[in-house]
C-alpha cells in the first residue's frame, strides 16, 4: 500500500458503492408494489395545498380516495369547477355536487364600532389577550382583532381590514376549519355560500345594554323576526338566530329595519360595505 492510496481508496469506495447500488436495485425489483398510476396523475391536477378541508390528511390521500371512488372530485373545496371537471373527465367519473362553504365571522364590532374599556399590551395574539380579563373589549363575545385567524390561514384567505376585523375572501377560503379552531372567542362558523342572511353578532345582552357595548350589536328588537317568513328568525337568549333549514325562505327584506345593522345580506365577502364607508370617511 505505498503511493497508491488514492487509487486504492477510489477502488474500495467505488466497489462498496457498486455493491450497495446493486442491493438497492435488487430490493427495488423484489419489493416493488403496483400502484395505480392514475393516483399520481390526479395528484398533479390537485392544488397541493394539503389544507385538509376535504377531510383527508392531504392531497395525496384525497387523490387515492378519488381514484378508489371513495370521494367525488368535488370533495376538494379548493379547486375551481373547471379543475374539478378536469379530474372527473380524466377518471371518467361524475364530478359530484358539493356546496361551496366559507368561514363567516359572527362579529362586526371592529375598533370603530365596539367600545374598549381598557388597552391590552403584551403578547400580541388573540389567545393571550383573551386570557387577561377577556382582552379589554367591553363586549366579551367580540373579535379581539389581533389576527390569530389571519396567521393560521394557510391560503391567505383572511386579511385584517382597517377596522381590525378579519375579512374572509370567499374565493380563496376552502372551509378547512383552521380559523374556527384558532379563534378564542369562537366567532367563526363554516356555512354554505347560499346562506346569505347572517347575524354578525354574538352579544347576549338586549336593548341599550347591548348597544352601549357596540354600535352594531344585535339588541334583540325583534324587527327582523317580524320582517321575515314565520320561523325563519327567532330571538334566542337576546340574539336573533336564523333557522337555516328554512334558508329558501330568507329574504333581504329581513335586514331592512335592523337599527344596528347586526343582520346583513351577504352576496360576496363580509364587511365590504363597511370598508368602503371607511375609505369614504378617510377621503
Amino acid at each position, binding site marked *: 500500500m505505498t503511493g497508491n492510496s488514492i487509487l486504492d481508496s477510489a477502488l474500495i469506495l467505488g466497489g462498496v458503492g457498486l455493491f450497495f447500488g446493486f442491493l438497492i436495485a435488487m430490493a427495488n425489483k423484489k419489493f416493488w408494489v403496483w400502484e395505480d398510476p392514475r393516483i399520481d396523475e390526479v395528484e398533479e391536477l390537485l392544488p397541493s395545498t394539503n389544507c385538509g378541508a376535504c377531510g383527508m390528511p392531504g392531497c395525496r390521500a384525497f387523490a387515492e380516495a378519488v381514484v378508489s371512488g371513495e370521494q367525488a372530485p368535488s370533495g376538494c373545496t379548493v379547486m375551481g369547477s373547471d379543475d374539478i371537471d378536469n379530474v372527473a373527465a380524466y377518471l371518467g367519473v361524475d364530478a359530484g355536487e358539493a356546496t361551496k362553504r366559507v368561514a363567516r365571522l359572527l362579529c362586526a364590532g371592529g375598533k370603530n364600532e365596539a367600545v374598549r*374599556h*381598557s388597552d*391590552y*399590551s*403584551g*403578547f400580541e*395574539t388573540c*389567545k*393571550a389577550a*383573551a*386570557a*387577561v*380579563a*377577556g*382582552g*379589554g*373589549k*367591553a363586549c*366579551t*363575545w367580540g373579535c379581539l382583532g389581533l389576527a390569530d385567524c389571519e396567521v393560521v390561514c394557510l391560503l391567505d384567505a383572511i386579511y385584517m381590514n382597517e377596522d381590525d376585523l378579519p375579512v374572509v375572501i370567499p374565493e380563496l377560503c376552502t372551509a378547512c376549519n383552521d380559523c374556527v*379552531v384558532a379563534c*378564542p372567542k*369562537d366567532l367563526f362558523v363554516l356555512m354554505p355560500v347560499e346562506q346569505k342572511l347572517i347575524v354578525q353578532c354574538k352579544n*347576549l*345582552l338586549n336593548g341599550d*345594554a347591548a348597544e352601549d357595548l357596540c354600535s352594531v350589536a344585535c339588541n334583540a328588537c325583534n324587527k327582523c323576526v317580524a320582517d321575515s317568513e314565520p320561523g325563519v328568525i327567532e330571538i334566542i337568549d337576546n340574539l336573533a338566530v336564523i333557522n337555516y333549514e328554512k334558508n329558501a325562505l330568507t329574504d333581504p327584506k329581513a335586514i331592512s329595519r335592523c337599527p344596528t345593522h347586526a343582520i346583513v345580506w351577504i352576496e360576496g365577502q363580509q364587511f365590504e360595505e363597511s370598508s368602503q364607508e371607511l375609505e369614504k370617511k378617510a377621503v
Partner: protein
Amino acid sequence: MKGLLSFKHGVHPPENKDITAGIASRRFPFPDEIILPLSQHIGTPAKALVQPGDRVERGDAIAEAAGYISSAVHATASGTVKSIELWPHPNGDMVPSIRIDVDPNSTQMQRPRIIPRWQDVKDEDLSKEIAKAGIVGLGGAAFPSHVKLTPPKDQPIELLLINGCECEPYLTSDHRTMLEYPERVYLGIRIALKALGISRAVIGIEANKMDAVEVMRKAAPDDLDVTVLPLQVKYPQGAEKMLIKAVMGREVPSGALPSAIGAMVQNVATAANVATVFETGQPLIERIITVTGRGIRKPGNWLIPFGTKLRDVVKHCGGLTEDAAEIIFGGPMMGLGQANLDVPILKATGGILILSRDECKRQDILPCIRCGKCLDACPVFLNPQLLGILAKAERYEEMASEAHLSDCMLCGCCSYVCPSNIPLSQLFAASRAQLRKLATP
C-alpha cells in the same frame, strides 16, 4: 432568614407590603348597588332563590349550591332584588348575577337566627353547616370548603395546615386577619379539626410577619395542639403544595390532592370566617380586602361586602392617581388583570392592586435565549422554557402530554425571572383555555 423551613426554587420579588401592613382594617360603607355573580367559586354556578322585586335582608341566602361542588351565595346588604342578568365578571366573561338595590341607610342587622353550638354539632355535620354559609377557600382559588373538609374515606388526614404565608407581594389582608382576629382563627381551627376528626394543626407564617407570629403564639389556647411556624420569605410559599413541602417535607403527587399524603391546607381568612358562622351566625358575606398600590390615593385594609363594584371601592379610597395604569384583583404575581370598573368584588378577591405606570413598566418581549433561569425558578420543577416554545408553536397537546402543563399552577415565577420579558404564565393560561376548547366538541 437562614434555617427557616421552605421549599426548593421559587423567587423573592420586592414585598411592597409596608404600604398597608400597618393600617388596621375598617368597615366599608354599603354601596348603592351590589352585584352578586352566581359563580364566585370553583364548580357549578349556584341556583338563584330570589326573583326580581324580592326583599332581602343582609345575610339571607339568595342562591343555593347546585350540586356538591358548588357554593351558596348570600345577600351582603339589605335591599330589593333589581334583576338577575348578565354582568361583567372579574375573569372577563359575562355571567348571570343578582343585582340588589341597597336600602339607603341600611344597617349591619341580620335576621335573628338559631346559631348551632359547634360543640354539639356532629363531626360529619359541621361541613354541612359550613356549606350552608357559602364558605369557600379565601386564599384565591375559592374552592368550596365543605368539599375540602370531607376528604375521601381512604385518605385520612393527619395534619391541618393553616396558611398564613401571604407570599404575594403587596397583599396584607391575611396579615391583618391574624393581627386583628387571632381568636377567630383559632376557633376556626378547632372547628376544622373537629370536622376532620384530628387533633394537630400547624400555622405557617412567612418570617416577614413576625408580629403576626407573636400574636398567634400569644393567643394560642393551651388545650389545642397547634404550632406557629415561621417560614422563609419566598414566593410561592403560600401555594398549597409548597406549604406542605416546607412544613411536612412531603410532596403532593402530580395530579393528586393534598389529602393523598394526609394533609389539608386552609387559609387563615377561611378559618376566621368558619368561626364567624358559629360565633354570630353570619355567612360569608364580607372579608378583609387590601386596596393597595401606588395608583390609589388612600390605600388600606377594608372589610368590604362582596358584590361592591370596583368603581365604588376606587371612589371610596380617594380615587385613582394620575399615573394609575393597571388594576389587578389579587396580587401582582397571580392576580387577574381587570378591564372594567363595573366588575364586583368576589369571595376570592383578597386584594385590589392598582399599579402606577412606574410600577408596571412595559418592556419589549424578546426571543428566548435558553438561559434556563425559569427552570431554576419553577417551584414544581417543570421546564417553562420548553412549555413556552410549545405554546408559541401552538402544540398544545404536547404541552399537556410531554411537558406536564397540568402541574403548572400559573404562579408566574418563570415570567418574573425571564430576562427576555416573555409572559410565560400568560401563555400557559391561554394554552389551557385552548386545550379546554379542543376537548369540548
